[in-house]
């Protein structure tokens, strides 16, 4: 297995702010063993596998077997000697999508139109059982179609149904077009729908809408100790080109937060009527709905985010750490994989990193920290296509290692703390 360590320090001139670079330079463990990633002192990274398709989410079983959802299909990997590198790799099934989760002896997966499961029998790496349909019939869309989901401890599956829209304009992404009010897209999209995970052959319409006003919550996760659902939501694009009298390119690149919320039953998180403005530090009415750049919605109508992450970073996975390998400060905290921006152009792209958000009792307990960076590399021409890697998925192994997947080359890393 090739495990390149890039000699050059991972200071990506375009992929993250200059002011962050000195901090990274000081704390990054750049010795052999990080695969060119910038990690906090004491952590190392091993390349598990690469090239099995554009990586999306991944899951690790209690026996250490790794399951990756990729654009080319499902991949199972086994490390037989514990060195972190996959010794056996096999593709299986016929599902090409984003999500993969383990629940008891079942492997739950999804594509753009449904959620499915395979029974995992003891000892087998790739499931030999037939695919079962848990729920299908979600409308086929091109935008925000990935049906990521979370499973609670009682056997319910919470499906993110992203809105195929930027801001529910009467004419999508057209300059000056006002918003539809009420937004009809919210009837079937832009929220989370819940289904019993053990019931087969359900249809999308059988689900119960659990929460709404979420443009696209790719990063969705059940927090077991808190017994609650959380998500980091992709915010809207293009405030400058759609409403140039109110916003300029720098505003568009920076102001619409990627919002981290606890998702409650019946909750409404404000899309498309509002967004959380990181410059003003409060929620504002979207320009399509009468916003003037600073007008606030009715007090208390929509919750503030737990954390307002920078615009366009593209949160694509969320994980609450409960493993035994990482130091105590990581316990109960959240890791978030940011796939990285495209809509910040012409401003420098940003994101392309894994962030750690300290949490206590389900609430943020301090500012977030960059945990893993250097994925994007120099990223020529400020274009995401030239990123070396883009982190997408997160999972924890039985020993507490953190696994990270990439969509550019299908690379998967195992990140551990300590000498071994």
């Amino acid at each position, binding site marked *: 297995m090739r495990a390149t360590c890039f000699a050059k320090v991972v200071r990506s001139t375009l992929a993250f702010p200059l002011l962050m670079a000195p901090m990274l330079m000081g704390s990054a463990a750049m010795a052999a063993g990080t695969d060119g990633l910038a990690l906090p002192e004491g952590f190392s990274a091993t390349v598990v596998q690469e090239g099995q398709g554009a990586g999306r989410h991944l899951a690790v079983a209690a026996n250490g077997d790794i399951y990756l959802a990729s654009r080319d299909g499902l991949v199972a990997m086994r490390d037989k000697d514990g060195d972190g590198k996959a010794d056996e790799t096999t593709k299986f099934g016929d599902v090409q999508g984003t999500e993969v989760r383990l629940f008891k002896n079942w492997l739950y997966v999804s594509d753009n139109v449904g959620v499915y499961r395979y029974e995992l029998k003891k000892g087998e790496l790739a499931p030999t059982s037939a695919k079962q349909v848990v729920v299908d019939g979600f409308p086929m869309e*091109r935008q925000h179609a990935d049906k990521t989901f979370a499973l609670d401890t009682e056997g319910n599956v919470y499906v993110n149904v992203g809105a195929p829209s930027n801001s529910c304009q009467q004419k999508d992404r057209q300059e000056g077009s006002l918003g539809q009010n009420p937004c009809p897209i919210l009837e079937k999209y832009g929220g989370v729908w819940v289904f019993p995970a053990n019931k087969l052959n359900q249809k999308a319409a059988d689900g119960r809408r659990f929460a709404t006003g979420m443009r696209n919550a790719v990063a969705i996760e059940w927090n077991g100790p808190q017994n609650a659902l959380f998500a980091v939501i992709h915010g809207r694009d293009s405030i400058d080109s759609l409403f140039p009298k109110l916003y300029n390119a720098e505003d568009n690149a920076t102001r619409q937060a990627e919002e981290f919320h606890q998702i409650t039953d019946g909750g409404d998180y404000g899309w498309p009527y509002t967004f959380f403005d990181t410059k003003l530090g409060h929620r504002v009415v979207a320009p399509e709905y009468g916003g003037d750049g600073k007008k606030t919605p009715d007090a208390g109508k929509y919750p503030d985010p737990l954390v307002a992450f920078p615009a366009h970073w593209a949160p694509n996975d969320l994980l609450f750490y409960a493993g035994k390998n990482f130091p105590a400060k990581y316990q109960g905290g959240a890791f978030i994989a940011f796939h990285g921006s495209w809509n910040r152009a012409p401003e420098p792209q940003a994101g392309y990193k894994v962030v750690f958000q300290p949490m206590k009792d389900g609430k943020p307990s301090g500012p977030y920290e960059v945990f893993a960076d250097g994925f994007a590399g120099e990223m020529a*021409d*400020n274009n995401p296509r030239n990123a070396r890697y883009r982190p997408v998925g997160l999972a924890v192994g039985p020993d507490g290692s953190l696994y990270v997947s990439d969509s550019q080359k299908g690379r998967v890393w195992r990140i551990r703390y300590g000498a071994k």
Partner: protein
Amino acid sequence: MAILSGALALAGGVAFGQSPAADAPPGQKLYARHCLSCHQADGYGVPNMQPAIKGGTWVKGDAKALALFVLTGGFDSAGRKEGASHNVMPPFRQLSDDDLAGILSYIREKFGEGSPAVTPAVVAEARATLPPE
């Protein structure tokens, strides 16, 4: 509720970018305002999201057809083939003939291997074929 935006939320204020210089041609400035965030400064688009225009048949082909395409926007998503980009280009009918000619001339020169400029008259000719709004 206090919002933690964190000490590291320094995404704004970076001193460099790809905004055109003050003396850049009007077509380049208009491209930056209306087109760049999707198709990017290098014209390669964003994989899976928006297609590349650099070197493509549209920018190198018939000027009137290109003008018509940008005036009417991308294809309806339901009719598109598997594997196409996620986002659909909106129509740019609100732009004047002069402005659209400037953008199209810029992308033909820069991304279309020096294909000839597009005149406002050609844009007007394409616009005349559109049904009323």
